């Protein structure tokens, strides 16, 4: 792999950290903006991923579907409110290619999400890794796909906010 230039790597780090901050704030309207229009978001249990089974916990197949999820989170899902905090590891770049649509980065990073309910202690809620395909667009780096493969065997009741 070619050495990545600092500017590109810095942009990648910024994408990862901005994404995490949006997930952890109530400003979920901005979540779809990290994706291109045909962008795909999938949150998948590791057992399905490793067995080649297609089912995900969430499989949002377009930026519009991600918008529908935001509406669900904010308006339709009755749930116990909670805070969450993402801790995202340093991304490792698997490849950078020049396609017809421009620069395309494939990268991965581990993540941990800690959940805190009102009156509750903070607990590890979901752990896994991101596998991302990122495009350089006129508006900066955007996800063509973000696949979150999680180890956490049991969802602690329900998962509402974006990972």
């Amino acid at each position, binding site marked *: 792999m070619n050495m990545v230039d600092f500017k590109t790597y810095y942009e990648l780090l910024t994408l990862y950290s901005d994404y995490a901050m949006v997930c952890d704030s109530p400003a979920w309207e901005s979540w779809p903006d990290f994706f291109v229009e045909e962008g795909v978001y999938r949150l998948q*249990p590791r057992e399905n991923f490793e067995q080649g089974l297609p089912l995900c916990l969430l499989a949002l197949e377009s930026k519009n579907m991600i918008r529908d999820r935001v509406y669900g989170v904010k308006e339709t899902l009755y749930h*116990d409110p909670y805070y969450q905090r993402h801790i995202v590891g340093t991304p490792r770049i698997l490849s950078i290619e020049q396609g017809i649509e421009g620069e395309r980065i494939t990268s991965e990073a581990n993540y941990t999400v800690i959940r805190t309910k009102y009156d509750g202690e903070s607990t590890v809620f979901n752990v896994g890794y991101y596998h991302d395909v990122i495009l350089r667009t006129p508006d900066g780096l955007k996800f063509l796909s973000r696949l979150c493969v999680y180890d956490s065997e049991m969802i602690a009741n329900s998962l509402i906010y974006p990972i």
Partner: protein
Amino acid sequence: MRDDPTVFPESPVWAGEGTSRVPFWAYTREDLYKKELDRFFYNGHWCYVGLEAEIPNAGDFRRTVVGERSVIMVRDPEGHVNVVENVCAHRGMRFCRERHGHAKDFFCPYHQWNYNLKGDLQGVPFLRGVKQEGKVNGGMPKDFKVADHGLTKLKVAVRGGVVFASFDHEVEPLETFLGPTILKYFDRVFDGRKLEILGYRRQRIPGNWKLMQENIKDPYHPGLLHTWFSTFGLWRADNKSELKMDEHFRHAAMISTRGQGGKNADVVSGVDSFKDQMKLNDPRLLDIVPEPWWGGPTAVMTTLFPSVIIQQQVNSVSTRHIQPNGQGSFDFVWTHFGFADDTTEMKERRLIQANLFGPAGFVSADDGEVIEWSQEGFESKPSHRTLIEMGGTDIGDADHMVTETLIRGMYQYWRKVMGE
């Protein structure tokens, strides 16, 4: 002055004969929970263990549970499905640690006892002792018979690709257990077509296991709790619907045909979850294509007591396995599937509609939440009781959704079996 002011009664008694008011202690007492495991999960009932499609080839196995007991569902060399308990006959070890796999035999690593795929003990190391300096050391007693010490074998019934098991070898046939009414709805989904597993979802819900049975015997809540059901007419009080039970009232089917949705004031006025202006940005989430096998209804939710729920909600089908762990918690395992002859488009559709269900689902995430909150109420004052009187206090099939009759039916059965 009240007779019994305690919040924590020492010898609680269910007042009267009815079942429209369920005491909170029915969800909180450990002694009752253990009795439930004995009487519902370990005796007299068939419990769901999995789907044949999970173990297509001889030697394939999958570890699962009946109640709290770990069992292994395995296909033997003759092609039969066996279910054996995951407890070594020697020292009681839960020896199978992989969740699924392929094996020629089972063995316990501790002392290397091994079993064939029917659960028969095959070999015991040093069975006849070890020769050393002209004498034989150790060995099992002369009267020890290998044939007497297999794994505990469960009785198995397979119907339409679904595997049920029972520790109770005297249990009635599966078809009798389900009864003709419920069998019809079971066979509607599992009519012998080959199934294709799409994957699993797992959640741990901090509530009593019965609350999940109740949730799917409660047609009153979906059009109220679930925005998607009320707004898009998938399931609400003005839908054409039926509620049916077996003769013991333990199993039930809730059958519904989707209405037009929209603003029928009788069912949505004042309902917080109804969103008049809501439109999907990506209509694929509700790209419903009727399938011939539905035979009319767009949704049939079937509760098989005590262990499983069979879901058909438009194009999304799954089994939901109730795996209790203590009186205040259960694991809920969803196995989504399709059919081997599905087109690529139909498979894609099932996967996208699966976003409505499971621990993060647009619809189902709320169900886990309300179960947790119910349990919190119960734990705080076990002397109190619920009020299950929508549609009256009687028990019977219905042709509408505005009733809690199925829950009353379940508790009539529960009281009979539990002697409470």
